[in-house]
């Protein structure tokens, strides 16, 4: 059942690319919504890693899939709370520019 035509390293490469693109977007985005989207990209990269290891190295006990479910749960909660915080910020500061949110900057 394990597919041999696509090696494990190919999945790890895709996951690494996705994670690094997410990190780059997280650092360089000015729009707060895009920052949240970059976080979702990073979480998806981690999930691809977990699922690849689960399928290739842990075929009987699919513990990677269990962890992926938990990651998806936490990601959904994070998206809801993050967007609520963003709405509250927008109502108070009237902008979504990350450079303007400097209330806690020393």
């Amino acid at each position: 059942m394990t597919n041999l035509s696509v090696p494990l390293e190919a999945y790890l490469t895709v996951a690494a690319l996705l994670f690094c693109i997410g990190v780059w977007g997280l650092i360089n985005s000015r729009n707060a919504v895009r920052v949240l989207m970059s976080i979702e990209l990073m979480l998806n990269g981690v999930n691809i890693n977990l699922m690849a290891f689960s399928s290739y190295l842990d075929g009987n006990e699919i513990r990677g899939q269990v962890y992926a479910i938990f990651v998806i749960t936490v990601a959904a909660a994070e998206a809801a709370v993050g967007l609520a915080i963003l709405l509250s910020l927008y109502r108070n500061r009237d902008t979504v520019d990350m450079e303007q949110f400097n209330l806690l900057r020393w």
Partner: protein
Amino acid sequence: MPPIAEITELIVFVLLAGAVVIGALGVVLLPNIVYAAFLLGGVFLAVAGLYLMLNASFIAAAQVLIYVGAVNVLILFAIMLVNKKEAMAASPGMGLRRLLSSGVCLGLLTLLLRVAFTTPWATPGPQSIGEDAVIRLGEHFFSDYLLPFELASVLLLMAMIGAIVLARRDVFATDVGTGEAVDQALIEKARSPLLVEKTTMEQSTR
């Protein structure tokens, strides 16, 4: 000559991986945030396709339902609510920051790829159980992963209440139209604007 199933699998993998990487680049780089949000949905769908290739149909379905159906729609709603064309003022040191962060990300990518390609993975591992994965997942959730499973439900409840509290308007304020103090009844009024824009308030005071 490899059998045709393996070639098909390879082609599908290359297509899905290309869609994931190009879509993610579009999410990060496109100037229009609405296009970026729709591309994010495409990335989620392609990742679900990768899960299907990894014999995980349940997680693929969960990915489509939760990410495409809930998270992406939530992000689109947030874009709709904070949709304002604003010219972001140029920040000093932006070019240097981009250069440095690109270097850091490329270094991280090199490190990850080096780890992935130099580690002797024990492939092929044990036989994948395929479609029995759902049964095994249920066994895991109700035996050795029971505590995290219950904690996840508490976390979701906390996130739900927290999101409601954070995103709720302050209903114990004055009515914008009449100027009189209002309470919860403001929610029931259909005519009152949900999001008061500052420009309209300034125009009305002028």
